[in-house]
């Protein structure tokens, strides 16, 4: 390691307590399919970074949301690129989570003691889909608005309590600025925080239980 790292490490003591972790045994000749989860996590990091950047210019209000997305795409330098990165990372994330799930299933890596980790992974998928759903409304354009009209109306089909659920999701009878801010809050605070917690648990269990040897 470099001299700067050594200097920091002598004071911060990072490498010694993590020696066992860094030098832990990993079954030789793992296939490249074991990369899928890591790739998904890379995409999560990309999403967090580009999302933080977009939040600098995005305005979550009924009157300004669409204009601010226009500004990000047309005026902000590299704005279109950052938006593209966010969108593509999101789509690829779902794809790679699905592929990772397939790999884990085929290797039977959900068997005891890893049942809980399967559940943590499933929660990750649910949180990702929820982020995709709430993020879809944020550009506040034609497609976003009407797609959200239809999808939020879906909860109102629940017998008896449907209408109350609809009000709960929309923050009112119609989709308006209240709904936008609500979805924005979920998208940038609640869901990423929950995601962080669940992923921490996911990785903690991988670390403790080791990598499943496969078939």
């Amino acid at each position: 390691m470099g001299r700067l790292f050594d200097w920091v490490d002598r004071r911060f003591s990072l490498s010694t307590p993590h020696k066992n972790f860094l030098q832990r045994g990993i079954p030789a000749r793992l296939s490249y399919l074991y990369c899928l989860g890591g790739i998904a996590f890379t995409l999560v990091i990309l999403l967090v970074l580009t999302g933080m950047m977009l939040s600098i210019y995005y305005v979550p209000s009924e009157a300004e949301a669409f204009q601010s997305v226009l500004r990000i795409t047309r005026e902000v330098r590299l704005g279109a690129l950052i938006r593209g990165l966010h969108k593509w990372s999101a789509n690829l994330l779902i794809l790679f989570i699905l592929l990772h799930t397939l790999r884990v299933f085929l290797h039977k890596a959900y068997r005891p003691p890893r049942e809980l980790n399967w559940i943590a992974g499933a929660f990750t998928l649910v949180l990702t889909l929820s982020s995709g759903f709430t993020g879809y409304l944020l550009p506040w354009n034609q497609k976003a608005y009407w797609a959200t009209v239809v999808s939020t109306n879906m909860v109102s089909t629940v017998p008896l309590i449907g209408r109350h659920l609809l009000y709960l999701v929309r923050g009112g009878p119609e989709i308006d600025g209240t709904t936008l801010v609500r979805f924005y809050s979920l998208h940038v605070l609640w869901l990423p925080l929950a995601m962080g917690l669940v992923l921490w648990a996911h990785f903690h269990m991988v670390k403790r239980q080791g990598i499943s040897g496969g078939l």
Partner: protein
Amino acid sequence: MGNHRDERDKSFYPDYLSEILAAIFLTIFTVFILAMVYAPSIDREINYVSAYHPKPEWYFLWIYQLIRYFPGGWAFVGTVLIPIVAAALFIGIPFVDRGTVRSGRAASFLFALLSVFFLVLTVVPLLWP
């Protein structure tokens, strides 16, 4: 299993770290290429007064297709009930497979069923919109 080492094991650092970093690099590179070649559209401002047919992202197409099959008062079966049951079955897979050959097959069947369900309902609206 666990942290104990095997003769044939490699260690995470440095054996695997470089491979992981290569995967990370390739991922980021691919996303950059895609973002530059296929930029997302801005679409247009909301039009509150004309008929419009919104379509969801590809990962929600299965629900979009599902709601077509449940008319009238049965709509909640397609919109809420089946998705929740599917999610519950998906989460429950480790508890179906209890290590025996038979339950292992049951779990495989369940996983295959959910996969086919997802794939078919995603492909159908793509082919016949």
